[in-house]
């Protein structure tokens, strides 16, 4: 042992290594809490601030937020916007582009989010999430402008939502 070699630090693990472990635990029937990274689920979810509570995905539906592998070894936590047979179309709430994957690439489903360091869960079955989802999905035609306004003006004046 080297002297002074102890370290108790909080670390971040790389997604492509870490998420397969998470998926294994989901498949074992656990639920898993993970810290969210990236800006693709704005405006509701914020990079590195919020957490997601995931369970194994059984029978994914349109509007579910799912952990999907968009091969090879790339993972996203995005909303399903279309299911056509085996082909699933995903789009992050903060994105304008889509991803395509197969049903079998859907590895987990978000059942709620812990926002702003709170201990209470905003459940995806709850009113708040449903109302937000209903509105935000319908605003897609003007999403480009809403996101630009949010990023360039709102956040500068008021901070993140």
């Amino acid at each position, binding site marked *: *042992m080297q*002297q*002074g*070699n*102890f*370290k*108790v*630090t*909080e*670390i971040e*693990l*790389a997604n492509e*290594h*870490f998420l397969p*472990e*998470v998926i294994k*635990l989901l498949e074992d*029937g*656990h*639920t*898993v*809490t*993970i*810290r969210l990274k990236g800006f693709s689920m704005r405006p509701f979810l914020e990079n590195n601030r919020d*957490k997601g*509570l995931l369970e194994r995905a059984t029978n994914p539906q349109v509007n579910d937020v799912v952990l999907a592998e968009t091969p090879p070894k790339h993972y996203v936590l995005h909303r399903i916007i279309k299911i056509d047979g085996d082909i699933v179309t995903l789009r992050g709430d903060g994105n304008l582009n889509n991803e395509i994957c197969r049903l079998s690439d859907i590895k987990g489903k978000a059942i709620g989010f*812990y926002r702003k360091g709170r201990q209470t869960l905003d459940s995806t079955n709850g009113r708040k999430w449903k109302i937000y989802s209903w509105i935000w999905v319908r605003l897609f035609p003007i999403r480009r402008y809403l996101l630009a306004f949010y990023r360039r003006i709102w956040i500068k004046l008021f901070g993140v939502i």
Partner: protein
Amino acid sequence: MKTKPGFNLRDVCGEKIIVAEGKENIDFSNIISMNESSAYLWEQIVGKDFTAEDLARLLTEEYEVDEETAYTDASALAEQWKNAGIIEE
């Protein structure tokens, strides 16, 4: 001192990490990494009452280290564990 219940040592992608685990949920949102020697100590004392002296003794048994250094390191580690919220008095 005692380890708090629900904190388990896991090996994820070759990293030894402490993760908060309930019966169902596993919380990866605040993970604490352990190097080899602190992971070794954790495995020895998990679920037991222990003192900094116990940690120091475990260190001198496993590693080539004199008692004084072991005690200094063990006390520092126990303090860090306490700050990280994974052990209690």
